[in-house]
């Protein structure tokens, strides 16, 4: 299992990367392996407000549908449209396949470091 150290994580298994005031959000390697093959991703629209700790979309795998919980509050400025046609990218490249980008970030959900997340996962799994 892979936990890139430059990312921040949530206990609901999203990762967060920030650069130039824009927050990029995806799901962790552990999340994709637990979900199994992803078959559909439900994304918000550009311009939608998002709230830290609240769902902003969902992913459907062969096993289940799971909410995507937003680690930050702000406004969606970009969505990864490639995922609409190729949701399997979340399985093959979870840290490359970002899901949404958020601007005007005003608040954060509880975030943990890669090491803390790895410890959390091994405890939970």
């Amino acid at each position, binding site marked *: 299992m892979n936990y890139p150290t430059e990312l921040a994580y949530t206990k609901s298994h999203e990762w967060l990367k920030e650069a130039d005031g824009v927050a990029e959000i995806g799901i962790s390697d552990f999340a994709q392996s*637990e979900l199994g*093959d992803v*078959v*559909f991703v439900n994304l918000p629209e550009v311009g939608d407000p998002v709230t830290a700790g609240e769902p902003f979309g969902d992913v*459907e795998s*062969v*096993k*289940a549908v799971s909410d995507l919980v937003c680690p930050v509050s702000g406004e969606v400025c970009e969505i990864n449209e490639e995922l609409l046609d190729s*949701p*399997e990218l979340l399985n093959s490249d979870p840290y490359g396949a970002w899901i949404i980008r958020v601007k005007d970030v005003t608040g954060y959900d509880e975030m943990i470091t890669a090491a803390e997340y790895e410890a959390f996962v091994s405890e939970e*799994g």
Partner: protein
Amino acid sequence: MKLIFEKSMAGHRCTLLPACDVPEVELDSALLRESELPLPELSEQEISRHYTQLCRRVHGVNCGFYPLGSCTMKYNPRIDEEMAALPGFASVHPLAPEKATEGCREVLDVAAQYLCEITGMDGMTFQPAAGAHGEFTGVLLIKQYHRSRGDLGRTKIIVPDSAHGTNPATAAMCGFEVVNIASAPDGCVDLEALKAALGPDVAGLMLTNPNTVGLFDENILEITRLVHECGGLCYYDGANLNAVMGVVRPGDMGFDCIHMNLHKTFATPHGGGGPGAGAVGCKAFLKDFLPRSALMEGEGRLQVRSFAGNFLVVVRALTYLLTLGREGVPEAAINAVLNANYLMRKIRGSFTPAFDRTCMHEFVLDLSAFKKETGVSALDVAKSLIDRGMHPPTMYFPLIVHEALMLEPTETESRETLDEAAAIFRELYDLAFRDPEQMHTAPHNAQIGRPDEVKAARSPILRWTKE
């Protein structure tokens, strides 16, 4: 295997109709199809072979053990089919005059009385087509109740996270906001989480008891009291009624309305797409909101389905109740619970139950530690069971248990069948340590191996089209 449409040969027929002896009528061209209706053309024998071939590719209750958790795949006595096939029931026209349908009305009436007695309700409708439709109707009763009192601020329905997916879907379809509450570690409702979610904006709670992990929620009276105290109503999902029918009544647990899957609990073969019947019962104060039906007529009542619902499913349910009788109905429930506990204890030496306590009619195994040790997943075990002539249990449900296998043996299986199933589980447990590869690639002897689930979900082909 070819589809029936692909087997079609122009000119093949089942019946030879006599020459038309009434005047032909030309229909208005606006009523006519523009293209030809692509119905398959086959002889009776070809159809018979087609369905027999299909039959060999599936596993039914008639083929072997079918412990598909949460689905109650019990054997349905032949007599129920015989009664449903009586011409007076099977051939009745829904628009026949009242005088000609007295017998059918009596069936509905008596079935309603018995089912009210079993569930502790005061009113009943047989309109809903099946379970989810029954849920929808039941939650609409709750909605209409609040509306009739001018209590318009109740916008939320509480659903535990272990609930069947249809519960939150129903609440959302009825226009409510769904509030999910986490289960306590024992799989039951977390009273503190419930209290925190309750308020003047709560319309009601949807719950099944025994719950989705097969445990009877011992706090049920406290749960329904808390919901009532805040002005909400309690909805009972009858999915797990087989465990308690005739023993304890949802009405006595404090529920205000309920749906039952008549097809599932009361003896109509199910799982093949219907028809089912989602009878909805309610306490007296909700009776006025029940939909219009053969039993409930009156101004202002709307229907949720045409005519009397799926009437023949009610005929089977009544036959089932009459053949089992007052002693037999609870005995069936008790045996369902006994069989589940027997099987759980026989399996416990190998696989691990998710909740180590007396279960009701079903139980959940947690294979997460087993998977860590052997690399063999719940899916691999399920596929390996197919090779051994057994229908796999429900997998990966409920979501609160990882690597879940959920078994519901039902009351109609003998002790010998359960012993055999336990031996198979033991064999697979050992095999996983010895030769996990054999399980990763199972099934080896089935007609269908591992279908491409991803492709099936991403690009399902649900209908045949010409060319």
